[in-house]
C-alpha cells in the first residue's frame, strides 16, 4: 500500500472515530437536557399524553389525597399539598436518568425508594391510573420540548455553533 493511501486510510479512520466520539458526547448531553425538561415540566404540573403532543395539566388530586398530603411530614419542598406534580417525597422524579444505548436516548426512573418500592413501579402506577385514579402520563417529550432539544443540539453541536457570531 502506498504511503499516500495509507495516510488517507488513517485520516478516514480518525474522522470516523471523531465523528463517533462527537455523536456519543452529543447524545449524552442531549439526553441530560431532555431529562431535565421532563422533570421540570412534571414538577410544574404538566404531563404529555403522547410524544410530540402539547403538554396538558396533570389531573387534579382528590380531596382525600390532599388531606393526606397535608398531614404528611416528609412532603417535598418541590410541591404543596394541593399541587398535582407527581411529587410526594420527590424520590421518583429525582431518580430519573438519561442513558444512551445504540444511538438511542432512554429516559427512565431508576432504583428503589426509602419504602423499598421501585421508582419505575411508582411511575408506572401514575401513568396507568386505576379505576378511580386518572392517568398521569409524563414520560414523553412534547412538541415544544422537542423544539427545545433540537435547538440545544444545533447550538451545542450543530450549525448554530458555527453561526454564533450573528446570533
Amino acid at each position, binding site marked *: 500500500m502506498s504511503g499516500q493511501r495509507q495516510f488517507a486510510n488513517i485520516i478516514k479512520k480518525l474522522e470516523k472515530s471523531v465523528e463517533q466520539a462527537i455523536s456519543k458526547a452529543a447524545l449524552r448531553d442531549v439526553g441530560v437536557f431532555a431529562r431535565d*425538561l421532563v422533570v*421540570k*415540566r412534571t*414538577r*410544574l404540573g*404538566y404531563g404529555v399524553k403522547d410524544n410530540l403532543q402539547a*403538554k396538558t395539566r396533570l389531573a387534579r388530586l382528590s380531596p382525600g389525597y390532599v388531606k393526606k398530603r397535608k398531614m404528611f411530614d416528609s412532603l417535598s*419542598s*418541590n*410541591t*404543596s399539598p394541593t*399541587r398535582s*406534580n407527581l411529587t410526594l417525597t420527590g424520590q421518583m422524579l429525582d431518580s430519573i436518568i438519561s442513558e444512551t444505548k445504540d444511538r438511542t436516548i432512554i429516559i427512565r426512573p431508576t432504583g428503589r425508594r426509602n419504602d423499598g418500592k421501585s421508582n419505575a413501579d411508582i411511575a408506572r402506577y401514575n401513568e396507568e391510573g386505576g379505576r378511580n385514579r386518572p392517568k398521569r402520563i409524563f414520560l414523553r417529550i*412534547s412538541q*415544544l*420540548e422537542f*423544539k*427545545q432539544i433540537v*435547538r440545544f443540539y444545533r447550538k451545542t453541536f450543530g450549525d*448554530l455553533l458555527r*453561526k454564533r*457570531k*450573528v*446570533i
Partner: protein
Amino acid sequence: MATKWQKIKIDLSGYGLNSDQKDEVADLIIERIVNRTDQGKDKEGRRFPGYSKSYKESLDFKVAGKSAGKVDLQLSGDMLAAIEVLDKTSRSVTIGFEPGSEENAKADGNIRGTYGKPTPDPKKARDFLGITETELSKIIRFVKAQE
C-alpha cells in the same frame, strides 16, 4: 382586554435574497431573539425589568430552578420554543406565535406587561419580540457571504 396576536413583519425587500436565503434569515432572526432573551435583554438590547417578589417566591419559580437575578422569560422554555415563521412572501417574513395558543398569551403578557390583567403596564413589559436594524443587517450580511 383581549390577548393580542403577537407577531412581527420584517421587510426583506431590497436585499436581493433568494427564497432559501430568506428562510435562513428568518431562522437566524428567531435564534437572535431567543439568544438575546436568554441574555435578559429586550428587542432594543435593554435589560428586562426584574421579576416581582411574589413570582420569585412562588413554587413554580423554585421547581423550575430559576435564579432571581436572571430574567430570561423561561419557566418551561416553551414560550421561546414556540416562536415560528408564520408567513413568508417575496418581500417579507412574519415571525411570531400561533394565534390563540397558550404561548401567544404568555408572550402577550410579557410584551405588553399585562400578565393576566386587563390593563397593560409598560413598566413591567418585557418586549422581546423584535430585531434591531443593526442585528438584521448583520444577519443578512452573514447569509449573503455564504453564497
